[in-house]
């Protein structure tokens, strides 16, 4: 919850019901516990109130200085009832046309905690860098290193052998000057045709290897991490706040494309979340930068965050995201086939997106990579009515219970290329 100060109504209701249960089962609250108060505040109040700023409701920092404790408790528990009897309350209700929700389930202790928090909020946690440590997969050079090591060892052995042999033959003085030794090695090297042959083979092979690997990475953009027009963090959304992938990428289950969410989907939450909480950071970008990023969303769709309403007649501008996963046009891929039918988790192809601040391409997206998975994946034929007959036929024919995607024809050219 660190990066979110306010929450949508739905989330708030959900959390408040959980809180409700929580307090009736484990009465852990302590009188005026500001830490607990913060929790309660964030769950119940933060959608409409801030401590230092007016929002839907007035700012609550130092509210205890303005209102009496009993009045506040009565107001919070059922403000409508209070308005009927109290002139002050009637006046207070005029602050906003939106009536405040009643919170009858908050106990007096709960309210004490909240009020403790509002009068003396605990210091913000230290800034934690959440980004910047993105792992970019590197080319695998191990084999090259091993080869170089082997060659080095071989060379050493040749030199040593040569010296030992000439020493044993006694046709040379026991110890020679370094220059003489080098000359002798060179002469021997020149004379050794077999060594030449070995070296030539080695160079040819390694050149071929390098050229081949270079060609194989052409068009493979594993690790591609473009800079996006909005510094959007999947880590904050999908990781910290645990928003389901398909909440935003809703067409993944219906369509061939997973769909980049349209700005109105963002607004479902960001109508109420116009700034990140203190201490949120992506890399070395802190709150100051990130709040401007949220503003970019508002600029696209035309949302006035002060009046909390859409600007009438606003010329909407689409957000031009940079596409990370590019499949060539001649390859057909359908998300719904994998997500809905096969039940493949998004992360299997897209990697740990919930840990990425800025998304990068996790998989190579090469044909070999597709095929590998199709070869190994077993098709679950038990749940889907479509496979009933096919399963029966296969079981009758080969006596197999499980078939892989490849055996179902998932490796035929025309299944993806048309």
């Amino acid at each position, binding site marked *: 919850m660190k990066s979110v100060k306010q929450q949508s109504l739905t989330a708030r209701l959900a959390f408040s019901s959980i809180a409700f249960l929580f307090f009736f089962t484990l009465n852990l609250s302590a009188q005026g516990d500001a830490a607990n108060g913060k929790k309660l505040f964030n769950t119940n109040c933060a959608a409409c109130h801030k401590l230092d700023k007016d929002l839907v409701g007035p700012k609550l920092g130092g509210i205890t200085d303005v209102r009496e404790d009993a009045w506040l408790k009565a107001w919070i528990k059922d403000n409508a009832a209070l308005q009927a009897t109290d002139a002050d309350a009637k006046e207070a209700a005029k602050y906003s046309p939106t009536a405040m929700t009643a919170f009858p389930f908050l106990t007096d202790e709960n309210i004490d905690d909240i009020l403790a928090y509002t009068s003396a909020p605990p210091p913000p946690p230290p800034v934690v860098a959440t980004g910047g440590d993105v792992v970019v997969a590197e080319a695998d050079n191990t084999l090259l290193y091993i080869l170089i090591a082997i060659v080095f060892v071989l060379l050493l052995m040749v030199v040593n052998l040569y010296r030992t042999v000439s020493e044993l033959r006694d046709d040379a003085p026991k110890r020679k000057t370094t220059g003489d030794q080098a000359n002798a090695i060179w002469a021997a090297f020149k004379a050794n045709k077999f060594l030449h042959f070995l070296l030539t083979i080695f160079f040819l092979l390694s050149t071929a290897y390098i050229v081949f690997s270079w060609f194989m990475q052409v068009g493979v953009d594993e690790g591609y991490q473009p800079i996006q027009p909005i510094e959007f963090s999947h880590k904050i959304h999908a990781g910290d706040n645990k928003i389901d992938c398909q909440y935003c990428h809703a067409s993944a289950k219906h369509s061939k494309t997973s769909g980049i969410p349209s700005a109105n989907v963002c607004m479902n939450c960001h109508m109420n979340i116009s700034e990140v909480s203190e201490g949120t950071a992506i890399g070395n970008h802190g709150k100051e930068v990130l709040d401007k990023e949220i503003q970019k969303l508002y600029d696209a769709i035309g949302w006035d965050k002060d009046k909390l309403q859409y600007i009438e007649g606003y010329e909407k501008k689409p957000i031009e995201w*940079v596409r990370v996963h590019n499949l060539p046009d001649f390859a057909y891929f359908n998300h719904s086939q994998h997500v809905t039918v096969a039940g493949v988790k998004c992360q299997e192809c897209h990697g740990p997106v919930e840990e990425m601040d800025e998304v990068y391409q996790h998989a190579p997206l090469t044909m070999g990579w597709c095929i590998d998975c199709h070869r190994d994946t077993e098709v679950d034929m038990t749940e889907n009515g479509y496979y009933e007959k096919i399963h029966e036929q296969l079981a009758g024919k080969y006596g197999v219970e499980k078939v892989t995607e490849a055996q179902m024809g998932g490796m*035929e*050219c025309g299944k993806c290329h048309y």
Partner: protein
Amino acid sequence: MASNKKYWKSVEELNENSSIVDTLKKNEFVEELPTDEFLGDKESLDNSSTTRRDFLKYVGFTTAAASLAACEGPVKKAIPYVVKPNELIPGVADYYATAIADGHDFANVLVKVREGRPIKIEPNKDASGETNARVQASVLSLYDGLRLKGPKGKDGYISWNEVDAEVGEKIAAAKASGKQIAFLSSSDASPSTANLVASLGEVNHVVYDAVSESGAVDAYETMYGTRALPSYDFSKAEVIVSVGADFLGDWQGGGYEGGYAKGRVPKNGKMSHHIQFESNLTLTGANADKRIKVKPSEQYLAMTKLYQAVVNGISTREAGPLQDAVQNAVSKIKAAGSKAVVVSGVNDKHIQLLALAINNAIQSSAMDVTITNNTKKGNDTAVAQLIADMNAGKVGVLLINNANPVYTLPNSKEFVDGLAKVDASVAFTMADNETANVVDFALATPHYLESWGMVEMKKGQYSLMQPTIQPLFDTRQVQDSLLKWSGSTQSYYENLKETFATLGASTSWNQALHDGSFALEVTETASVVEGFDLNTELKSAKKPNVGELELQLYTKTGLGDGQQANNPWLQELPDPITRTTWDNYLTVSKADADALGLENVYVADGAMNGDYVELKSGNVSVKVPVLVQPGQAEGSVGLALGYGRTTGMKSEMQTGVNAYPLYNDFNTTQTGVTITKVSGTHKFACTQLHNTMMGRGDIIKETTLGVFNTATDPEVYNPVPKVSLKHQEVDATTVDLWDEFDRSVGHHFNLSIDLNSCTGCGACVIACHAENNVPVVGKAEVRKSRDMHWLRIDRYYSSDMTEEYAHDNNVGGKEKYQKMEEPSANPTVAFQPIMCQHCNHAPCETVCPVAATSHGRQGQNHMAYNRCVGTRYCANNCPYKVRRFNWFDYSNNSEFDFNMNDDLGKMVLNPDVTVRSRGVMEKCSMCIQMTQATILKAKKEGRPVGDNEFEVACSNACSTGAMVFGDINNENSDIYKLKNDKRSYHLLEHIGTQPNVVYQVKVRNTEA
């Protein structure tokens, strides 16, 4: 007895000494490499300062630079909606029901919409929609970049407010001065629009059809009292006699092929018998069992004789082929009684009255005079009167809706003169056409896919039109303009809903919009008006002039009346009969051509050249190329309307000659024309000699109904070819070079094509273009036999002079072909759609060096474009000649300035199918994207695929049910039954390719 006819595609093949045909049979790729083009002449090569070594250096550097540059992938953007419409999921197609009613074509259709743009038209089968090639292609006309982009005054584009102010003023002025306000409109079958026209005040509403059916409408009005046409259901007819009615073409608004085809498939030993009297070889004549060539003027005679014999029982004694044919038809009609029907295509009230009278006399069950056909209501007399009024200065305001009279009127000049005397002329038009250029205000109207509307094609059967895309340009519907000018503040949409509410339909507005149609009960029945006497009517009948040479004007399957002439799909659609693209031409009989010294010459690459003639009728003369047409009546010539448009057209699309000036008195038959040969050679883009089957047999199998009914063993009419195995003749199907692969698990797709019900209409060809992003290559490339059509409809002529007959009667080769020359004057015709046969043992797959084409277990022959290196071995080894090679990039290439070269035209592309690049082979994929989508839909819903759920673009577009697609592993499917039908056979079965496309033997209802 199996038919052993000789089939030929072109007259040239009958010429025994023709070197061309031999060459073409032997030579797969007829084109020589154009080395001259890139090497240039020797002189400039010698004088060039670039040496060979320099050249190689440049090539080396550029290749290296290009490959280095290619290593960095471009940055691609992903731009989502700002606010996504709720009903839309990116990547999933939505279907909307609507209707086309453009004055020439009328149909209930479904529109496939992807991300808010229509990409394909399908027939709305729930509303008995049938689509022809033009309806299928109409989606591309939406994306025509040369459409009128906004309201235009004399001095260029103006605003709608200015239009409203100025036109409103003119209308008021006309009303004040008592001048006529005229509304000249093509048939739109829209009652709601007619009401709006009336709401303007006293308006002279003149309905004008470019290709008129006025005679038939007048006849119905005289006999039954209202202006309409009877509707016909040919499936109820056992005998169909047509005198010049091309009812499988555009006759009376079209849409008759479905019913016709139903009666053409033998069922319980019965099928309809179709007799056609005509001059040009039309699609209808080509499908007839008996076709009688008559000169245009003889159609009058034939109809009179028919009437006299059937109704009055009088038969003239004079002998002659026409008399015999009429007698034969009469006996057939009498035998069938009420199950016969007589129709005519002559635009003459009296001929049409005779046809109505015959049907009335025999109580024909195929003709329905109550549920009338409202699609054509043109009134020739009213149009003539309007032009006279205009010239007399009586017309204050002329509103022209969806018509192009300046181009289509035979007396266009009079009309233009008259326009000058009209105070204000306004044209509501989608195209920036000839008329738009001469009127005071050309007001841009939206395409039907951008419009609201209500159409009553048949009495009581309403269709609703709804927009499927936001308007592309600053357009306004004519109905909205009329509402505005009549002082209403309503939009047409609101008005339409109001109209709907007053009709009292039993369905809700939303339901009707969803279905695309709704029906009202028709209670009153039509009957012959009291006091109608045919004989009095006939007294005023004019006897037709008989000319030495007579012209029969017609409309082609591709362009129709010419309003979609800027549509490259239609321009490149081969005419079903002549197989010629991008042209109209004068069809001349062999005998007349010989007499006048006219000929068609085939050049080495299969392309055809033709002589030019000057065609004269009255004081109009045009220079047209000649096409020698088998089956053309001697003494007659044919010319298609709809070509020769020049305004608002891309230059490639400006093809052919305008035949409308010859369309005197709106009569398609013009007597007294003369032709004289003039100099010059016309280069046709004719595909009839392209992709021949290398002289192999077993292509068309046909038999007669008699044989079909009496034969106990299908071997009689559908023999399995024999091959020699160990010196024994065995069935070809029992011999196999390959190991059989087990295909019993999962799906196994087959496509069945019934040669009996295929009329050759070409709707499937266009549907295939739209579904599979088939590029248009242009006239010059088609001429080089580089057309990219995945699906072609081969047209075969045949005659009764058979190989067998020649053998039995010791007829020598030369004499045999000469005899064949004679029936080539009136051959029988068979149509055969050919696409990739998806052979289980495909010859193409074994020869591909890079395994770019391979077989799927579902029966489809796959083609991986990205793997193809373009050796073309596969095309060489394909016995069916269905593979197409991309000689160029056809997209984003200004050399091919068709829809794939402009941003608007590209919107029609199907995003699920690759746009192929240069140097790769392509071919029919059996719409694998559609079969895969069907499977995925079933998987997502967790159910087996329905019995007849699988569809491909061509089978979906087929109105006649000739094409049926499905899974033969599902024994409940239609395709399973068809595959095992006794009529089913494979093409070139003796070569053992085991295709997954099956054909059904053609059965003709003839005595022989």
